[in-house]
């Protein structure tokens, strides 16, 4: 396998990758610090709808860049790339399913905790449902 690039081009690829990864990381940390109110007093960004999606998107971009350029998968045959990338799609299911599951544990636990707080009340015998004497018959079986 011959090489097709000059030293200058190789260094160019390395420097470009370094700058891109560094800038993306700085943006992520910057969003975390500004968004959580560490830089500007009293200023925060909405976490769930803005910060989280942006940071996940930037991380995925970094992952794509490392795999495609640094690990050279973009230049391998399509079949090879597919045999590595396609199994990764299982993560879509796994992440959805297990985060859902985690939330469900949380709900169940909170339900149990709330019920425990209520305490046990003494259950009084419900006399209206049972006819004990002949005299009660009238009151219990009234159809009015």
């Amino acid at each position, binding site marked *: *396998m011959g*090489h097709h*690039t000059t*030293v200058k081009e*190789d*260094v160019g*690829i*390395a*420097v470009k*990758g*370094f700058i891109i*990864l*560094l800038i993306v*990381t*700085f943006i*992520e*940390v910057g969003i*975390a*610090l500004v968004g*959580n109110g*560490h830089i500007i007093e009293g200023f925060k960004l909405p976490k769930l709808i803005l910060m*989280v999606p942006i*940071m*996940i998107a930037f*991380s995925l971009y*970094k*992952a794509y860049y*490392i*795999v495609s350029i*640094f*690990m050279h998968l973009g230049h*391998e*045959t399509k*079949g*090879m790339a597919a*045999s*590595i990338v396609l*199994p*990764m799609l*299982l*993560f879509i299911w*796994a*992440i959805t399913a*297990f*985060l859902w*599951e*985690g*939330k469900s*544990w*949380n709900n169940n*636990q*909170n339900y149990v905790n709330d019920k425990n707080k209520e305490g046990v009340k003494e259950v009084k015998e419900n006399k209206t449902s049972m006819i004990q004497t002949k005299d009660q018959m009238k009151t219990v079986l009234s159809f009015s």
Partner: protein
Amino acid sequence: MANETVIETQEHAHDHSHEVNDKELWGGGVEPFRASYGKLMMWYFLLSDAFTFGGFLIAYGALRFSMNTWPVPDFVFQTAPFGIDHAPLIFVTFMTFVLIVSSVTVLRAVQEGKRENKSGVIRWLIITVFGGAIFLACQAWEWTNLISTEGMTVYTNPFSAHIEKGKYLTFAELEKEANVKGWKKEKIAGHETFYFVDNEGNKYFEKKDHHDQLPKKMEVDLATPYLITFSHHFHDYAPGAYKTESGEVKAEQYGPKSFGTLFFFITGFHGFHVFSGVVFMLIIAIQSWNGTYVARKNGYEMVEKVGLYWHFVDLVWVFVFLAFYLL
């Protein structure tokens, strides 16, 4: 049929390196996906390793979703060496920077390997080894600080965030409340620190921060992060007492135990990968130096494989960084 075959051969005669005809394919010596066995297997190992790390990080996600409260990363990771404090995420950003630099230097080693430039390969591999070693040293410092200074272990997590509003009590206020409730006053042996014990055996301390000072803000808000101070005189944790808005006196609750366990397990597993990579790169640098790869005549393929492994370690860090430090 014969006609078709002829056309196909003619088409591909121009570009022989890209397509292999049936005759050549069955003649042997053709690699699937036009990648060597070793490189392909390295990729499939990395795929399986991705699922291992993925499984750990998904476990982290599921457990985090199952808790009502979770430690706040910018509060937990705010210390750095040389006495730097209140600098959220700065140290870990430096660690990430080191890993990015080492990823780029290993890329240079792979490029020089393809050029069969022995001295270039050795130089860039050794630089990458230094990068890996710096990363490991940083992680060692981070762990030491978390374990011995802040008291987070695999079993105990003193970091958490408040889930109700209230106010920390000064010692005088706490004593007043304790007298009304009839709590016992106790003293740390050999030290002038008092605390109170309620009927169920829970301990209530005056809230102190790292530097044994009262916290800057006595008000407790929703999601305010806190650390239960580990008292080195006492050899135990000293949960600060606070009064909720409804007038109840409570002691700080420990955070989810799984935070410490997951943190040490996942960053430890990643650190183990970094350590292995450093060892592999040292071996490969030595083998480059003694001419093993020149004798193999395969264009320094081993350097390419360790390059893949090292980039993968950087790739995993992207997601460890996301899960533990950013979100």
